């Protein structure tokens, strides 16, 4: 046949908990228990509080630039909770703090990172995550490689990697997706489409109707979910993770969400986006929605909320205290992690003298105060 269709594809969108807090019971079956939902709601609230405090820390000069996660907590919670703590491996960017905390990262690490301290990246033994990643779109390749190692060693483990809508424009995104699909590694690509990459809206970041369809290029299973819906995020993530674990290869998830705050504390989003849009999305706030749901199910009360908020404040206060209580790193740290083992001679010299030129650092040169005869 001279014209024939050789390929067909479609993208599904999944929502389980709608904006009014109404749950689709059929789809919600075998997802989260009441207890788990309450737990995650609490965690999300703590994270929101961390954001508020971090913002103030930056404003008062006690911390550098900080990117709020505000509005995206359901995406981080649902996906992070779907991955097995201590088994699976998270490879984040910087807008899924809660996923990291759910996998055991002490909260003050995140603050330390943004306080300009590498020890915020010194992930404790047993916590299976990579540090917060600043360069956009590069970490998905590491996730693919980590997942590849799991496959080679026949370990039933999965790598989950996070990135934004903007990150999908980078060449490394493409290469990571392609490698993962060709090698059929257990990796889940979790895109937080929060509609903005700093000031660039999704529509001029890409010309496709969905982000999810990018996975079609690689023949990779893909889905679009309501990213402010904890249930939908959890279900899609769990399915993708378990498919990967059982040898079914990588998947892509587009979580449609919204960055309620500025890009970072260095940004002023009012310069480029409409307040109306922000308000529309504020109404879809994942915390608000979840609380409505909990209230509807009589799992929540004004009183519990008050106590939660107080607890969140106390927790975050403690975290700030811990982070700020950590002494400035030793200058030696600049040198000591460049290589394993003994430093090369020149680096030892630089460290010992805090000098970069060897002039004056060698016994025969020190103390020469007159122009000498030539040798």
């Amino acid at each position, binding site marked *: 046949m001279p014209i024939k269709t050789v390929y067909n594809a479609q993208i599904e969108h999944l929502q389980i908990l709608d904006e009014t807090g109404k749950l689709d019971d059929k789809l919600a079956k075998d997802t989260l228990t009441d207890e788990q939902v309450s737990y995650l709601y609490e965690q999300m609230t703590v994270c929101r509080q961390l954001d508020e405090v971090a913002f103030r820390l930056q404003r008062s000069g006690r911390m*550098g630039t900080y990117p709020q996660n505000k509005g995206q907590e359901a995406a981080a919670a649902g996906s992070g909770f779907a991955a097995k703590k201590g088994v699976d491996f998270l490879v984040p960017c910087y807008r899924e703090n809660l996923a990291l905390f759910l996998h055991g990262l002490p909260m003050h690490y995140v603050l330390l990172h943004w306080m300009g*301290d590498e020890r915020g990246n010194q992930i404790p033994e047993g916590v299976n995550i990579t540090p917060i990643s600043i*360069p956009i779109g590069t970490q998905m390749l590491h996730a693919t490689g980590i997942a590849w190692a799991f496959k080679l060693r026949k370990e039933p483990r999965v790598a989950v990697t996070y990135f934004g809508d903007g990150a999908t424009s980078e060449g490394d995104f493409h290469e990571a997706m392609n490698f993962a699909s060709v090698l059929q590694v257990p990796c889940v690509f979790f895109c937080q489409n929060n509609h903005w990459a700093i000031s660039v809206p999704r529509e001029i970041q890409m010309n496709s109707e969905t982000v999810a369809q990018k996975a079609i290029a690689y023949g990779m299973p893909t889905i679009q979910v309501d990213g402010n819906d904890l249930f939908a995020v959890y279900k899609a993530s769990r399915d993708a993770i378990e498919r990967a674990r059982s040898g079914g290869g990588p998947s892509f998830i587009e979580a449609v969400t919204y960055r309620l705050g500025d890009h970072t504390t260095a940004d002023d989003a009012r310069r480029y986006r409409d307040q109306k849009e922000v308000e529309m999305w504020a109404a879809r706030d994942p915390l608000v929605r979840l609380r409505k749901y909990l209230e509807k199910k009589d799992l929540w009360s004004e009183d519990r909320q008050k106590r939660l908020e107080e607890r969140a404040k106390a927790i975050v206060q403690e975290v700030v205290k811990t982070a700020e209580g950590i002494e400035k790193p030793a200058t030696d*740290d*600049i040198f000591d992690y*460049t290589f394993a083992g003994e430093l090369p001679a020149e680096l030892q010299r630089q460290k010992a003298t805090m000098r970069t030129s060897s002039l004056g650092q060698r016994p025969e040169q020190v103390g020469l105060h007159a122009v000498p005869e030539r040798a």
Partner: protein
Amino acid sequence: MPRSEMMIEKGLTLVDAINEALYQEMERDDRVVILGEDVGLNGGVFRVTDGLQKRFGPDRVVDTPLAESGIMGTAIGLAMAGMRPVPEIQFEGFLGPAFDQLVNHAARYRTRSRGAITVPMTVRVPVGGGIHAPELHSDSPEAIYAHQPGLKVVMPSTPYDAKGLLTSAIRDPDPVIFFEPKRVYRSFREHIPEEEYTIPIGQAKVVSEGSDITMISWGATVFQCLEALDQLPEDVSVELIDLRTIDPIDEDAICQSAEKTGRVVIVHEAPKTCGLGAELATIIQERCFLHLEAPVQRVCGFDTVMPYYKLELEYLPDAARIVEALQQVAAY
């Protein structure tokens, strides 16, 4: 754009000066287009392109997708097709993904096509440390691009130089990397001509004359050098040279000074090994060997990864380290 009250009264910051050069070149030549991440409505994360989209429209000041190789590669295509693109890379750390297009394509097209195809573009890149930024926002990769034939590399340290050099860069028929020391972006103001002017690429500037020691620097560290001169207790006469252009190097200017003083200190932020300091020192010992009274001394970043900001001031050359170097060179 007409200058603000503030600018008229107190002068222009480095950011203002670059903005003014961009504005004037876009007025003058409609082949000039700006492209990059957040350069449009947002005016760039440092506001260097502020107001330009409003004035010249979204076709000439273009917010691109988040992809540095894409920015560089399409800018090359624009230039090949007769435009004068001025791509912005948001921070020098993100030149990494654009490295291949810059070094293997932009730099080589004139040579590989024997002049048939050329790439007149100016790549603007904020550079250097000292502003408490996150990782990969504080490096100084100028030596890497100086090593690549076919590229010109510029790094002004003052508003006056920035305006004149950027104007030259945009008019240059070949690719120029224009590094903007972000530590200086708003650190002071300077009264500079409102009308357009150019400063030739490839000419160093004597910041202060002297006869005992030559000190060479560029970008933000020029100001650490000035601070060091203030602190220098001894009565030593130091000639401070601001290189302004990284490549081609103004060999005559530095050698002339080195021959006069016989003692040289070079200061830069980048790691020592294979930094530009090495090239300068080697040129000086090649050309001024018989005049040198002491080894050329380098004060640079260490050969370690640029630390996060809690330790960045320990890493970056500061007045104390520079003073020490000057004293040692003087005493050698």
